[in-house]
């Protein structure tokens, strides 16, 4: 597959995030002996997994020039469903969770397509509704998830395991789809200019539906990763994911107004975000500074992307 045409510039967008991740990794390695330890690397993979998957879903929506603020709530709901049902259903609760995620995506799409509600506000509303449902289902953290799930999926939290494989497959597949299929191209097209896309025969409602389904489904997968990690349900645990997912995508060079960005950039962005936190802890830096640093790095990255880019953005 040839990275020609639009594929190359999109790949380039992911470069800064990659460099950032490498830089943080280098710093952490030099100043902390623990960074390159089997234990830590294993932890890092497990932390990247849910964020990267959620961010991938978010990115797909951003490619289409939309946005999904319900990712966090869907993750919470997923853990709640897992926590409540896995005792009886066992492995069957996994497809159930995925279905729930898709349903949330469909709900978002319905609002955006049928009611023509702005995606930002529609998904905002959805996240409230979904959070409410999660709280009805599981008013407080709890529910039992069998240890079998943990052992089967995370095993000994080693570096090479299912999580790594899952990340690799998900992003390889995404790269193929968004670089080299008409479906992926239609998503970019809608994002870069909706009217033009429509005029070029893109089925706008169809694409809207697909991106929100993808985002909802992937959020559910991320939710499963979290739920298995904590072996229980937690109706609030997902909250922080929404912004982190967007941050990861944007750090990875995905344009908020749609049409531009590569999935590998998203992965790099997720890794960078995870590494920032890890480095702060391992280097015993003032934890209060962590948030400030994240904010500043964010701004710096954005300035990088925005240089010479003129299309005005919301």
């Amino acid at each position, binding site marked *: 597959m040839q990275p020609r045409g639009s594929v190359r510039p999109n790949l380039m967008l992911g470069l800064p995030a990659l460099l950032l991740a490498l830089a943080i990794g280098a710093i952490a390695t030099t100043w902390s002996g623990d960074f390159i330890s089997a234990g830590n690397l294993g932890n890092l993979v497990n932390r990247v997994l849910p964020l990267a998957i959620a961010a991938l879903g978010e990115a797909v929506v951003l490619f289409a020039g939309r946005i999904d603020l319900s990712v966090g709530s869907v993750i919470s709901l997923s853990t709640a469903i897992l926590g409540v049902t896995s005792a009886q259903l066992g492995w069957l609760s996994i497809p159930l969770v995925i279905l729930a995620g898709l349903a949330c995506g469909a709900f978002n799409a319905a609002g955006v397509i049928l009611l023509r509600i702005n995606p930002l506000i529609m998904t905002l509303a959805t996240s409230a509704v979904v959070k409410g449902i999660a709280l009805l289902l599981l008013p407080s953290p709890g529910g039992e998830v069998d240890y079998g799930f943990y052992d089967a999926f995370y095993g000994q939290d080693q570096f090479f395991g299912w999580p790594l494989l899952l990340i690799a497959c998900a992003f390889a597949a995404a790269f*193929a789809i968004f670089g080299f299929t008409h479906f992926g191209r239609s998503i970019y097209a809608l994002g870069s200019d909706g009217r033009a896309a429509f005029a*070029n*025969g893109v089925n706008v409602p169809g694409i809207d539906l697909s991106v929100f389904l993808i985002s909802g489904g992937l959020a559910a997968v991320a939710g499963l990763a979290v739920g298995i990690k904590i072996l229980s349900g937690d109706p609030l645990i997902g909250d922080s994911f929404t912004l982190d997912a967007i941050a990861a995508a944007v750090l990875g060079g995905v344009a908020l107004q749609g049409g531009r960005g590569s999935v590998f950039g998203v992965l790099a962005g997720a890794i960078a975000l995870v590494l920032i936190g890890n480095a702060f802890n391992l280097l015993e830096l003032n934890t209060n500074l962590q948030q400030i640093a994240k904010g500043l790095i964010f701004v710096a990255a954005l300035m990088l992307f925005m240089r010479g880019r003129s299309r005005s953005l919301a």
Partner: protein
Amino acid sequence: MIEITSPALKPMPAGLPRLAVAQVSKAFGANKVLRDVSFSVRAGEIVSLVGENGAGKSTLMHICAGSFPADGGAMALDGAAFRPASPKAARRAGVALALQETSILPDLSVGENLFFGDEPRNGLGFIRQKRLHEAADALFAEMGFALKSTRMGSELSAAERQMVEIAKAIRLKPRLLILDEPTASLSSHETELVLAAMARLKAQGSAVIFISHRLDEVMEAADHAVVLKDGALTLDAERGAFSRDDLIRAMVGRTLADIFPARPADLAAAPVRLSVANATAAGLKPLSFALRAGEVAGFAGLEGQGQRPLARALSGITPFHGGEIAIDGVPIRLTSVARGIAAGIASIPDDRKHEGLALDLPIRMNVSLFALSRRSGWGWLAHALERRFAETARQRFAIRSTGIDQPVRQLSGGNQQKVVFARWLAETPKVLVLYEPTKGVDVGAKTEIYRLIGDLTAAGVAVVLISADMLELIGLSDRIHVLFEGAVTGTLARPEFSEEAIMRLAAGPEGVLTHAA
């Protein structure tokens, strides 16, 4: 099988028409845009569709191409009932439309735009990027378009976007090709290429409908002309059966003796209004010229030879690097649009949708900016003045609208351009910079705009006219500078004006057509 022998249709010669349109009507809200329009196109025939701005041409073509359905009437394609549900469906049936508003995807490469929808795939169904871009380059070569398949859509100039749009349609070797004002933003050379491409398709047996406000093109290319006026069909004649004046009469209901204002014999006495001394800007070699009060300096050239940089620099958007600009002998620092306006420079952009108008705001707000700010500065708004001014402007420019509170987005291209112009009614600028001032504007509106330019020059305004429309340049200018690769390669005085003379200079010193991207 639908009834297509309506009175409006001439009896068919041998064979069914490629496309037959019968009693099609369409209304947007209260605004009846098409009234029982009927006409037909034969295979291997070029039909020219002309009419004033807002006559309904684009709307009619959108219906043929499935962008939206008609309210009433019927269509038949090669005899079979034709009701496309979407542009896609229409394309599948062999009807391709190149829109007046181009629909190039900015974040895809030219090649990807060209093949969007049927990209070459490999066994696994993945797109073959290399093959795709090679095929695109081949097609451009065949059509003589100087375009590179790997450039991104966002980098293209208006003309280049238009050319890609046409290539997209032609690539499909459609049964019916519809081009909506394809040449509006093209230089005469590019126009030739487009007309040639149309001829090639015609030879291959396709039918072509093309819309243009440039009647000389129509006279040259059309086998058959159809004229719309206020949504109704007013003329439907074979080649030879209509003259330029017939068309104009059918369009505007009157003949226009000469649409250009008379030029004063000699301006040598007039004082110098604008003087530009070896000014440079990105894409412009050092440039010098002086412009007298009441004089019109035309700037001609192939597309992308420095017209845009010149227009933007003169209006203070992307200022000159060096050199001196003086107005009435007073040097000015033209570092921003505001300074330009303060110094008495008015400018009309070529891309009205993005650079000229707030499409979602009413005509009133779009038109009244200068009238208001000259009265109120930054202080209280003079609402009464605004409405009065907007009303005057609407009537003076015959802006077709439901009222001064109608959003500009709902106006047709030409009427939108009138709004941009009308804004300057408030000022009497010292220098007027016009960049493609009548792009997509019909004869009627053109005449009004030309008259306005005449009045302004009579009042001592110096005009810089940057245009790809030869007739316009020749008709309006007192002097024509020809640009090539950012430099003036020659200047013609009024007696020397002729399309040939201009083309010779425009082709560059060696006469080769190099393309400056």
